[in-house]
């Protein structure tokens, strides 16, 4: 018995503080959200349990179908851009462009938006698509004698998908690039000699080698897209008329604009459940793939 205690003493001392931190910052918010979701907490901060009232309200909310549709479109298309554009950039900078200086420069350029504050990045998009003739796009259009357009007003979903897609691609690009670079050069030589064209090299050599990073990036981006809304908030603020409102942003709006904390928490809880289900589905996919064939480079 004593030896068991001795064996665990050091790890407990070392890990203890972190476990407390993890508990404080990871679990407590989830539990709090869970509790708040069943209350009617508002700006006055007094609250009572109201059983499933928040959820009843949510599912009978007249905007909810639009918001769910937006969320689905936003996550799906942005995810596609994130992953496939990231993959394209990675292929361009590692497989097609062999000169390391060029590809490094190229990758750095794509990293730039990640390094700039979101407000500035959002501002750029707003400026570019500004409906007045001072917007960059409309300025260009006026050079050709075309009338100004208000794309943010008419196609808000398109704009927020593009804005998030472009900035999110750098994450996949970095991960995929390093995975591609770890493939032994001889494999490419062998494929060249065997007469494999580019698409076959990508399909038969690169893709199997980066399958795990690919899955990881997909899952990671999916989760962050479900829960993040800062660029939407900054560019369209969900408008016009909820046309680009997504679930995460709706939760924010309800909690911090209408001060319906309880309702906002209920929306968040639904989001958590959706995220969990998505993770489980992807996880299952991973496992199945794993059984079909392990990918290994050696």
């Amino acid at each position: 018995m004593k030896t068991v205690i001795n064996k665990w003493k050091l790890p407990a001392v070392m890990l203890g503080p972190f476990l407390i931190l993890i508990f404080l910052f990871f679990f407590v918010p989830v539990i709090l959200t869970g509790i708040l979701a069943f209350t009617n907490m508002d700006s006055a901060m007094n609250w009572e349990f109201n059983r499933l009232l928040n959820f009843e309200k949510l599912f009978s909310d007249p905007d909810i179908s639009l918001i769910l549709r937006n969320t689905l479109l936003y996550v799906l298309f942005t995810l596609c851009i994130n992953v496939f554009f990231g993959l394209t950039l990675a292929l361009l900078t590692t497989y097609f462009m062999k000169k390391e200086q060029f590809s490094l420069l190229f990758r750095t350029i794509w990293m730039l938006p990640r390094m700039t504050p979101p407000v500035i990045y959002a501002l750029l998009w707003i400026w570019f698509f500004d409906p007045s003739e001072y917007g960059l796009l409309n300025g260009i259009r006026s050079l050709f004698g075309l009338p100004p357009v208000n794309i943010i007003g008419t196609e808000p979903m398109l704009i927020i998908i593009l804005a998030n897609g472009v900035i999110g691609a750098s994450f996949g690009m970095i991960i995929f690039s390093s995975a591609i670079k770890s493939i032994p050069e001889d494999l490419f030589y062998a494929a060249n000699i065997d007469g494999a064209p580019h698409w076959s090299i990508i399909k038969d050599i690169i893709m199997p080698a980066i399958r795990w990073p690919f899955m990881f990036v997909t899952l990671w981006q999916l989760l962050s897209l479900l829960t993040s809304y800062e660029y939407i908030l900054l560019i369209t603020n969900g408008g016009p008329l909820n046309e680009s409102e997504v679930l995460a942003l709706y939760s924010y709006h309800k909690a911090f604009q209408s001060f319906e904390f309880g309702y906002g928490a209920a929306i968040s809880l639904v989001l958590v459940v959706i995220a969990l289900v998505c993770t489980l589905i992807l996880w299952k996919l991973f496992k199945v793939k794993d059984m079909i064939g392990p990918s290994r480079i050696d």
Partner: protein
Amino acid sequence: MKVELQNITKSFDKKTNTIDNMNLTIEDGEFVALLGPSGCGKTTTMLMIAGIYKPNEGAIYFDGEKVNDLEPKDREIGMVFQSYALYPHMTVLNNIAFPLKQQKVPKKERLERAKEAAEMVQLGHLLNRKPSELSGGQQQRVALARAIVKRPKLLLLDEPMSNLDASLRIEMRAEISRLQKKLGITTILITHDQEEAMTLADRIALMKDGRIVQFDTPMNLYNEPDNVYVAKFIGTPPMNLVEGKIMYNKLQIDKQTYPMDKSRFHLEHGKEVILGMRPYDIQLGWTEEIRFLGKIELLESIGHSKIIHANVFGKRLQLFAKQDFQAEIGAEVRFSVQPAAIHLFDKKTGKSLRKAAPYGDEMFVKDAALQ
């Protein structure tokens, strides 16, 4: 397929030439070994022949046709890489069938031919394994099958046996030799194992620092090395080398003089030379004309015989003795060698002084062998 390299130069950093003005002609159906120490440019040469690297200067001809700008896939070559380079997620069968798939061979024929190639290297029972589930030797055989499956006109083998144990290596050697004879493919084999090169190749190109030092049959490399570098590289244990000086048709070493065969060597009075004697050519006792008296420094038993390390003129020479040879360390030993069995090299240039040897062009080997 006849392969010709003309004045090939390759540089990676624009400062030094990894391959320096290389000329090499390989006849149709010939088995040639590229032999040389690590880093001398063997793989680089092969990758240029494969079309993966482009030479900075010079031309490569296949059957008289210039192929400098021909894509690797159009060169009708098969290659086994130093690292095998098997496609890790494909089964053995799919690995072997991959080149055929790229040639759009119909699926049925493709799989048949792949199986046939697998049988040829005795892999028929492992077709559904992944490369990571195979031993090193099996992986190498998969690589070999993949290289021959499309019936290439030129087979390039980059140290295909480097990672095998001794017995498997001998087995693979026989297999490669048999395959090459059976298929009659022009083959280039890279190795830094001279025994491998000697047993397999019709001709060996011995390389050093990006150049070919001598390109000849194994026997000629052994019996008539063109310079001291070849002499030292070929043969185990290596040739004994002793410095001396020509004095009127005779060789002087440390005040001793030895008769030299004027009909065999260019003998120039006063020239500094290197005398070379293979350990196998040295006889115990003063039975031959060129005689030495040495002190035994070390006696090594290698099973079927013993190697005597004897000190003569402050140099350590090696010679063979019978298995039952007995002697004290420090004892005197007499040995001798026939004039017909010795080699003489110019000390300054490293060139052989043999009369039949190609003479004239500047050699760069110098006293490389004498450190």
